[in-house]
């Protein structure tokens, strides 16, 4: 019995350390395992590591590996594999995506085959959450040696890659030796259907048991079908209008604030996503989330916006361009258009530039834009999520182009604080300040959608979008 699954984007590679595309991560999470992973409630739970502990000043973390963990080639997962994997990530020649998150690691010790100790250059609590990423997966040391990471997929995860026909299908079989539990079916056949209307059609005709949907407009049609169930899970990724404070009028705090006041976040959400989501401030993770209405100008106030514009000398408005990526997210063009029409009310004349995703990313990374409609990924920890933008040393500071001492110091405080209540307080303050400085206009978070036939049960969605929940699914036709 196999689970027939469909998604619209194929994976683009098999190297767990180098792939960052959602489509690749969704696949790699089923094949490889990190030391720890996030469960449905974003709590850190065991994966390869059965348990772990920080030392008192949070400069060292020790993992105890699950003795049953096996790679799909039969070899046991040992501390040597963990060490080799992290060394590979840290090696600059690898070009690993998550290296920056682990740059503070100064030593990896393997007292025995089942224990790994990471030493950091200072207190670092968020590193645990960074370890949950598929980009921190553990791969066999032998495969690293052989240089076959990326061409073969030998992980310790619940599924084994049987076949991958690019752009067409991925065939997975269940890994009988998986230490994490048992899967109640034999494997997954994943089909790539690039058009989401086709996915819906395939669901309707019963060709597909389970599907990943990106487009809220398509997802909202699923509940109309009696035989289908839609799972929607709020996600951490946030839709945002990024302003570039290094450009023209946006250098003015007043202008940025005016923009923030002129945007009706709920209306953008209602139009572009048909209301599928909720308005949010910068902090999207449930544990840190605050009531957004308390943030600066989250109630639309055009008069105030106009006043702010006038104060800064832009009573007559200005023109600027806003860039958005085609189809990424699928609602980007619609968002841009609603924003354009809202900002027109305070005299800002926006030109929309739709770009192919990689052209967009290229311009984004260069900070070469006035404004950008973006869907930025979220993390379960505010520091890991935002240090790249809102610390002075952040490596994407040149994209954000705005920093002040308060943001920087709040971030650094939050980084070393281990007490959850205190951290919440620090980051709430950070959020308030960020919303007021308005370098970006945070809009809302959407959902991750999966649709399934009614005979599928047991899927546990996850705010990170992981499909790991498929391991607990059962098929009762």
């Amino acid at each position, binding site marked *: 019995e196999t689970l027939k699954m*469909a998604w619209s984007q*194929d994976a*683009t*590679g*098999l190297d767990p350390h*180098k*792939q*960052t*595309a959602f489509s690749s991560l969704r696949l790699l999470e089923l094949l490889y395992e990190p030391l720890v992973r996030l469960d449905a409630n974003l709590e850190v739970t065991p994966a390869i590591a059965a348990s772990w502990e920080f030392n008192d000043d949070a400069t060292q973390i020790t993992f105890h590996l699950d003795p049953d963990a096996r790679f799909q080639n039969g070899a046991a997962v040992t501390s040597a594999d963990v060490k080799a994997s992290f060394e590979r990530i840290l090696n*600059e*020649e*690898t*070009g*690993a*995506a*998550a*290296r*920056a998150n682990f740059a503070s690691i100064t030593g990896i010790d393997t007292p025995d085959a089942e224990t790994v100790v990471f030493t950091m250059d200072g207190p670092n609590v968020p590193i645990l959450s960074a370890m949950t990423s598929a980009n921190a997966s553990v791969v066999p040391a032998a495969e690293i040696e052989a240089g076959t990471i*990326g*061409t073969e997929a030998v992980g310790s995860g619940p599924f084994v890659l049987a076949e*991958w*026909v*690019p*752009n*067409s*299908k991925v065939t997975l079989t269940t890994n009988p030796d998986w230490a994490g539990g048992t899967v109640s079916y034999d494997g997954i*056949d994943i*089909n*790539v*259907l*690039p*058009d989401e*209307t*086709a996915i*819906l*059609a*395939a669901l*309707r*005709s*019963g*060709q597909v048991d389970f599907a990943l949907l990106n487009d809220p407009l398509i997802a909202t049609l699923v509940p109309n079908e009696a035989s289908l169930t839609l799972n929607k899970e709020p996600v951490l990724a946030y839709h945002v209008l990024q302003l570039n404070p290094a450009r023209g009028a946006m250098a003015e705090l007043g202008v940025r604030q005016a923009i923030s006041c002129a945007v009706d976040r709920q209306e953008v959400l209602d139009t572009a996503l048909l209301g599928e989501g909720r308005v949010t401030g910068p902090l999207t993770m449930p544990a840190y989330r605050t009531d957004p209405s308390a943030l600066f100008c989250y109630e639309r106030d055009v008069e105030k916006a106009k006043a702010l514009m006038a104060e800064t000398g832009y009573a007559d408005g200005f023109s600027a361009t806003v860039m958005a990526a085609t189809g990424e997210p699928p609602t980007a063009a619609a968002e841009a258009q609603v924003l354009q029409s809202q900002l027109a009310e305070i005299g800002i004349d926006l030109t929309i530039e739709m770009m*192919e*995703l*990689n*052209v967009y*990313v*290229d*311009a*984004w*990374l260069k900070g070469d834009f006035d404004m950008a409609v973006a869907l*930025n*990924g979220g993390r379960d920890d505010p520091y890991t999520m935002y240090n*790249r933008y809102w610390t002075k040393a952040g*490596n*994407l500071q040149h*994209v954000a182009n705005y920093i002040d001492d308060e943001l920087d110091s709040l971030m650094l405080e939050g980084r070393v604080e281990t007490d959850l209540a205190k951290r919440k307080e620090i980051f709430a303050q950070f959020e308030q300040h960020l919303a007021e400085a308005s370098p970006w206009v945070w809009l809302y978070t959407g959902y991750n959608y999966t649709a399934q036939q009614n005979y599928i049960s047991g899927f546990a969605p996850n705010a990170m979008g992981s499909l790991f929940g498929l391991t607990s699914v059962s098929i009762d036709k």
Partner: protein
Amino acid sequence: MGYAIRRLLVFPVVMFGVSVFVFVAVRLVPGDAIIAMLGTESGLLTPDQRAALAAYFGLDQNWFVQFWRWFSHVLQGDFGTSTTYGKPVLEIILNSFPLTLELALLSMLIALAIGLPAGVFAATRKDKPADLILRIVAMIGQSTPGFVVGLLAIFVLSVGFGVLPEMGSFVPITEDPLRNLGQLILPALTLGTAFAAAVIRISRAAMLDILSEDYVRTARSKGLSDRKVIWRHALPNALIPVVTLSGVEFGYLLGGAVLIEQIFALPGLGRVVLDAIQQRDYALVQGSVLFVAFNFMVVNLLVDLAYSALDPRIRLDKG
């Protein structure tokens, strides 16, 4: 024969042109393979990391060196390795080509099977109601965008009838001919009907021209029946423009019908190239464009040869 060989001699020239062209064009597109792979995360790379990845993707040299490195391998039959899929480019192309080829053949077959008889029929009923109806249908068929037809077909079938051709993974005809046909019939119909419309119009026009030719009159003066005059004397001549049209169309189809492949989720050559461009998978883009261009030229050559087989007047050596 000499003609075919001479035409083949032009192949390398054109192929070299295509190579240079695609090589430069694909590099002029902003964003590179590193960005395609790591997305915004590539902003976090250190300079050393970036250099390591550039070397990995073969982007570390200037264009001339890169070109030579690639082209000299191509000359040895090695099209390189796809940076996205980690497989040899040729393997990926040859995997997706059967589908494209089959789709092209099938839609041609449909187009000719519908178009030729209908065109001939319309010509023999010139200006009668049957002719008018066929002409209108053909006109409309030719004017409707294929992707709209495709979208509607999927929608109507899945909502109205709850059935749908199997989409996504593709079953080769050698494995399971029936399933294979089931997968391809709808897209082939979508492509084929638009093409059939063109065939109707061209064959009708050609037939009308030919029916007023002197040699048709000669055939009639021999006492041949109307049917024989049409099928034996007129049709072979009317085929000539149809062959030209089919050749051009077939050549294009072999390049992959991107939109139709997208809508019907067929992993054909068109999507391979589209995705390769999006992934900045240079080797794959270059390899598949070369492959498609080569096919196009071969098809063109075959059409010209078929042409001269059909029409002994055409002295290919003149070209």
